[in-house]
């Protein structure tokens, strides 16, 4: 009976850890992307991988 608490406690801790992580960020993740259509002003760049070694600032915005 005592042993059944162990998996429950582990699952509880995992859930708490998940809840504490910010759901609204990719921070800490490695990203790569290949553009299917060359961006405006792409200057020959087709993917994020080609920019490795240089910081990239992505600005999500809306025209409207």
């Amino acid at each position, binding site marked *: 009976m005592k042993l059944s608490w162990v998996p429950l406690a582990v699952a509880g801790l995992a859930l708490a850890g998940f809840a504490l992580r910010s759901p*609204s960020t990719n921070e800490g993740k*490695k990203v790569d992307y290949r553009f299917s259509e060359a961006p405006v002003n792409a200057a020959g760049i087709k993917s994020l991988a080609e920019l490795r070694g240089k910081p990239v600032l992505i600005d999500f915005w809306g025209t409207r």
Partner: protein
Amino acid sequence: MPTAVKHQRELGDDVQVIFVECQGAERDTYEAFAWRMKWMGNAAMWTHERPMEMPGSGLPQTALIGVDGTVILQGNPGALGKRLSEALEAEIKKSKQPPADAPAELKKAWTMFLKGDVAGALAECDASTAPAAADTRTEFLARTTARIERVKRLLDAGDFGLAERQTAEIEKAVKSNAELAAQIAEQRARLNDPANAREREAAKAFDALVDKIATEKPFDAGNVKKMSALAEKFSGAKAAEKAARFVELSKLRAGA
């Protein structure tokens, strides 16, 4: 003006800004909008493709990708505030130094590479007995061949001005490496080909006009007229196509 435009203008080649339109606007619409707002004429790129997820609901949203491709920060730029500019500054600093995890034996190779001596850095890797030397060499080669590929694409697009600058830098960097020197020599031959003289001249005229008008009411009648004249004068050249596109964009109603 978005802070990112300022960063691109002020930091130049040290950073790459990518604007991602997230409200479903067409390419013509956001490109015309960017011209009208005087945000063009710098190296920032504009797209509607999201290179990564944009969790959360709020716009604007900014993400800083570090030199190794890891997302350092993501969130509302206002809320990130000083943290964003400090993190960006730190990444720029990192971009000019060997990676922190580079083995001591390969720091010299990295320093040479980052200072623009690609051939020397490759030779340093070849002479090294460090276990990571082969991977480091592969990384240097991958980054350099990507730059050469980029020059090819610039020439394909008629962007001769930037292609010339990039070619000159790469030539200097790979001078004593026969294989890479041969690859960039092919692009130099395309650049200097007399058959491309008109493309070169058109690109030069287009770049000069963009530099002049980008931050000063680009769509003013006088500027549109100059761009239209350029399109006509160099008809058939790729830069003339870009000039004609600018003229068409200027006709789009603001907010359309």
